[in-house]
């Protein structure tokens, strides 16, 4: 070895802190929770399925079917752009850590990706929100429906994991076969990834700046979306992992991470709603009801369940899919495609007739503080998180519910 290893300087070390190793999930989740509070303070909380649905509507608008001529162009849709920049942020994170590569899986995996993505679209349409809107933002929004959605998510995930295990046992060839890997950044020759990462980062700021004149909120959504993608990629933040791993390897780190993010958001969201922060020209009541969707009971239950099945089969929740797209995992490209194409179809044709036949009560108020008061609702949501924590930690130790 003749090559001298140079000791990195102060800035070099700072760079390594962020991009040499993965971050613990809880660190990523706490930052994501904080950014989520910031999004809420500026406008409304984090969500992913709405943005993906916007892309889908624009795809069909382009093709000219389903009568979607009036769909909001993605360039003016806050959540459409948030999702675009989430992918770009993850792309930046993957490049700066030289983890980007086009990873093409065996055929069977691509099929599972597409089907899983389609099921997520269906579940998100039923549940009026995905793993983010009706869970990671919905629970802190003190929504009763979000708790039902979460229970559905949990059951769907466990069942789909059972399916995956069965498939691996009976049809191991489905998830094996020819795979390809392009453009990886291993070794010195991979340094182009770091340069490209910086370029894309700078371009993102330029685009955000261009919006800042006419649409200040959009400028913020672009920057926050980009950071959300970058942080998710570095910390491998994934809702599926949080729900699935205790039942698979028994690991609790992913779950505890997500819980940390939830707890931060519960504090922030409750404060925003309690004090009516950022009410602007809307009523205090409208601010309170932000991200409290009319999906109690059946819509949330069915939505959570179907979404749970989908995200486990795809191997990424809504956000997990988006950031893995940015990292170059082609299975999740298939999942995103399924999500994009099926979402508008679910919204227009599949879900409405079923929802109309479901028993529902419009009298039922879905906002927990209406029943429990703010202290009660706040304590109740934290208590649910605590129960979940005790369960995954106990299970990690005993392996009582884990498959391996």
């Amino acid at each position, binding site marked *: 070895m003749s090559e001298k290893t140079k000791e990195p300087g102060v800035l070099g070390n700072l760079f390594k802190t962020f991009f040499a190793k993965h971050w613990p999930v809880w660190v990523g989740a706490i930052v994501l929770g904080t950014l989520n509070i910031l999004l809420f303070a500026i406008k409304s909380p984090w969500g992913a399925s709405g943005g993906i649905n916007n892309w889908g509507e624009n795809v069909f608008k382009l093709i000219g079917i389903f009568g979607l001529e009036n769909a909001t162009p993605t360039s003016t849709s806050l959540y459409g752009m948030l999702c675009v920049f989430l992918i770009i942020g993850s792309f930046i994170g993957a490049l700066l850590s030289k983890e980007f590569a086009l990873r093409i899986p065996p055929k069977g995996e691509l099929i599972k990706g597409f089907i899983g993505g389609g099921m997520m679209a269906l579940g998100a349409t039923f549940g009026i929100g995905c793993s983010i809107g009706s869970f990671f933002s919905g629970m802190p929004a003190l929504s009763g429906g979000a708790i039902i959605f979460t229970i559905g998510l949990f059951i769907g995930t466990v069942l789909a994991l059972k399916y*995956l295990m069965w498939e691996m046992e009976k049809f191991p060839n489905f998830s094996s076969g020819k795979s390809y890997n392009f453009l990886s950044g291993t070794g010195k020759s991979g340094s182009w990834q770091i340069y490209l990462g910086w370029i894309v980062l700078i371009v993102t700021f330029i685009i955000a700046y261009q919006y800042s004149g006419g649409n200040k909120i959009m400028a913020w959504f672009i920057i926050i979306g980009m950071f959300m993608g970058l942080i998710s990629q570095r910390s491998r933040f994934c809702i599926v992992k949080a729900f699935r791993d205790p039942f698979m390897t028994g690991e609790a780190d992913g779950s505890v991470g997500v819980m940390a993010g939830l707890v931060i958001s519960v504090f922030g969201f409750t404060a925003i709603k309690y004090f009516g922060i950022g009410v602007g020209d809307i009523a205090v009541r409208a601010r309170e009801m932000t991200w409290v969707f009319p999906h109690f009971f059946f819509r949330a239950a069915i939505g959570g369940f179907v979404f749970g099945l989908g995200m486990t089969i795809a191997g990424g929740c809504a956000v997990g899919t988006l950031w893995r797209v940015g990292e170059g995992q082609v299975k999740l490209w298939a999942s995103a495609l399924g999500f994009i194409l099926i979402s508008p179809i679910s919204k227009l044709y599949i879900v409405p007739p079923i929802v109309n036949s479901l028993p529902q009560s419009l009298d039922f108020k879905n906002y927990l503080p209406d029943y429990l008061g703010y202290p009660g609702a706040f304590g109740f949501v934290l208590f649910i998180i605590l129960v979940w924590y005790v369960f995954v930690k106990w299970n990690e130790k005993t392996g009582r519910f884990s498959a391996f």
Partner: protein
Amino acid sequence: MENKIDQTLDCKGLSCPMPMMKLAKAMKGLKSGEILEMIGTDPGTKSDLPRWCEKSGNEMLEKGELDGGIFRFLIKKK
């Protein structure tokens, strides 16, 4: 000293959770002291696998990166 490899598990192209599921299953089939070589391309494995080894008591003998973005791990069953 070169480690004697008892089984190789190819997880190239697979993404979460397939590599960890296949790994856990393959490890079940090994006898104590036997060594599994795993190759894959999912960056998630880089942090998932060491953590799993630590918790399950299996020993990670080697971890490295080959050309073309392929990760390679050697794990000894406890």
